[in-house]
């Protein structure tokens, strides 16, 4: 088991190299560079050229790539031109904020998805199922940013129930005070993310239940005299929940993507907002570091899914 995981991690190395190369070249191909925006009447083109030379921007791309990777390997992604601070430090702060948001969103996603999936599957074909399917259809087909904007307008600016920006109030003090303030800041976006991104989990669970209900082993369980409630919980539900557990890794990575919109609209200082800001500000060093990080997190999410699957399903052995 540990050997296999190690092997999978080693296999990720070439994937990450290809990914980093791709990101690097893509960033190079984008028009402009960090200094383009700095040209003002006060800075002469020759000064800019000197800055470029100092930053190594005139070297061949592969030299730039190797030095970027070399420094990245030591956790050094350079300086943010926009913020004049080390990229690693900025991402570190923001990642913590995103982590809080992600944890609460995942909890809310599952708190909604599991009962909905179970009800839809158990009462397949009834109005309960139809309503849940309808809700999923709506949540999948509505652009999430529209919902975020409406919600922030209504509950943030209108009713003033929730803050409309930031991650923690400056006036919060004490350990619990800060925690409470943090939760208060993420509660609205988390609920919205939870409401909007559970459809795949609901559908996965529902179809698992619907399929498993018809399996022969369920008939065997009934033929043993096992009461129907137990047949459902121990056989049908348990067998349908295992793939859901394995789907966890994918839910996490999907959520990180989803958080980009939410953070930007709620002005929540997480990685997602940082990413959008870095794209707008042509803050290359931040942007490339974030894309690389998202890529690695996706690979890790998939690995996590495979590991969970092999733990919960005895038929799958990853060796």
């Amino acid at each position, binding site marked *: 088991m540990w050997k296999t995981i190690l092997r999978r991690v080693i296999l990720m190395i070439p994937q990450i190299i290809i990914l980093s190369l791709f990101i690097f070249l893509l960033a190079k191909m984008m028009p402009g560079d960090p200094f383009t925006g700095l040209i003002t009447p006060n800075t002469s083109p020759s000064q800019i050229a000197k800055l470029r030379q100092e930053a190594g921007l005139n070297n061949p791309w592969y030299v730039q790539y190797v030095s970027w990777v070399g420094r990245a390997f030591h956790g050094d992604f350079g300086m943010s031109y926009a913020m004049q601070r080390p990229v690693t430090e900025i991402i570190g702060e923001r990642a913590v904020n995103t982590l809080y948001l992600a944890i609460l969103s995942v909890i809310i996603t599952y708190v909604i998805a599991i009962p909905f999936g179970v009800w839809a599957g158990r009462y397949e074909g009834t109005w309960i199922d139809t309503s849940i399917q309808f809700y999923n259809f709506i949540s999948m087909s509505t652009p999430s940013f529209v919902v975020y904007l409406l919600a922030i307008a209504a509950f943030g600016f209108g009713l003033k129930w929730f803050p409309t920006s930031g991650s923690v109030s400056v006036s919060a003090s004490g350990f619990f005070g800060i925690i409470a303030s943090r939760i208060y800041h993420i509660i609205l976006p988390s609920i919205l993310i939870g409401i909007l991104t559970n459809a795949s989990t609901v559908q996965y669970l529902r179809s698992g239940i619907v399929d498993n209900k018809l399996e*022969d082993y369920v*008939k*065997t*369980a009934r*033929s*043993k005299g*096992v009461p129907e409630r137990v047949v459902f919980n121990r056989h049908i539900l348990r067998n349908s929940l*295992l793939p859901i557990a394995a789907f966890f890794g994918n839910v996490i990575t999907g959520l990180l993507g989803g958080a980009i919109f939410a953070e930007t609209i709620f002005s929540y200082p997480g990685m997602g907002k940082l990413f959008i800001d870095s794209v707008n500000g042509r803050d290359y060093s931040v942007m490339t570091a974030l894309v690389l990080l998202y890529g690695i997190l996706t690979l890790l999410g998939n690995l996590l899914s495979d590991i969970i699957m092999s733990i919960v399903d005895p*038929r799958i052995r990853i060796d």
Partner: protein
Amino acid sequence: MDTSDELLLDIQHLHTAFRVHDHFYDAVDDISLTLHKNEILALVGESGSGKSTLATSIIGLHNPRNTKVTGDIMYNELNLVGLNEALFNRIRGNDIGMIFQDPLSALNPLMRIGEQIAESLVYHTKLNEKEREARVLQLLEQVGIPDPPLTAHQYPHELSGGMRQRVMIAIAIACKPPIIIADEPTTALDVTIQAQILDLLEDIQKEIGSGILLITHDLGVVAETADTVAVMYSGQIVEQGSVYQVFEHPLHPYTRSLLRSMPQADSDDEELHVIQGTVPSLVNMQRTGDRFAPRIPWMPASSHEEHPVLHEVEPGHLVRCTCYKTFYFPDEKEAAAAGAPQNANEGE
């Protein structure tokens, strides 16, 4: 079987209808059967004749939302038709054990073998966990599993088909049920394994004295293991009797075609040589006259009864419709034309 043996199941005028497009169609149409202690009753018939439907009706596993079961299934003064679920759950597994055709899909892939066998004991015995574990090992031993402690901890996919079917049998006999229903227990297995599983079933039956309803479409299996046999066609019984009666004096054209098409050692084609066609689907099933008539079109309409009923030709030997009296196979026609009397004893 000794006819004086205790009556276990008395099925009278059983109908099981499935709803298809808002209409109910009888897949089991007025079936009456009895099963005694120590008896192996074989139920034979082609695919779609309603064998599994009958079995599922006995153990009460049809979904009441789209299935209607009427008639009587008497078990110890208790009518299983319409029995409430709580009571039925006390009977399933405890009084009736069931073995399914495909032992891979019939076992929960995510549960250890030991756990699946023990589940039955949880609901029908007062054994504690330790005692259940011991009983599981004893059962695995009884069904011929070479290493019970190992197998108890394995998952279904780790076992061969034959081993899985042994496990299914262990589940079915866990509470020593007086009735065992085996729905094509050997169809999914290799020929060599088939014989072993049947031997095992016979041994078990001798040990616990159950009555077994053995569903199969293999007449070789019937001849070797069963005491009595009922031949089903299109939801009805067309012939029924002791194995001796039915194999030595087959009467109904369907039985005779089945016997005639029994795969010989030197041929392996499984179709009914003489009789073309298949059992019609549930919705297209003919409900009047002789249901088998379309497959023996050379027989004149006058040879069939308008409302075919079962005739008792000998004590215990029943046959439906009167067409058996004049029935012949087309390739026997020359003999018939040559003036040989057509009679019911061509099988001899």
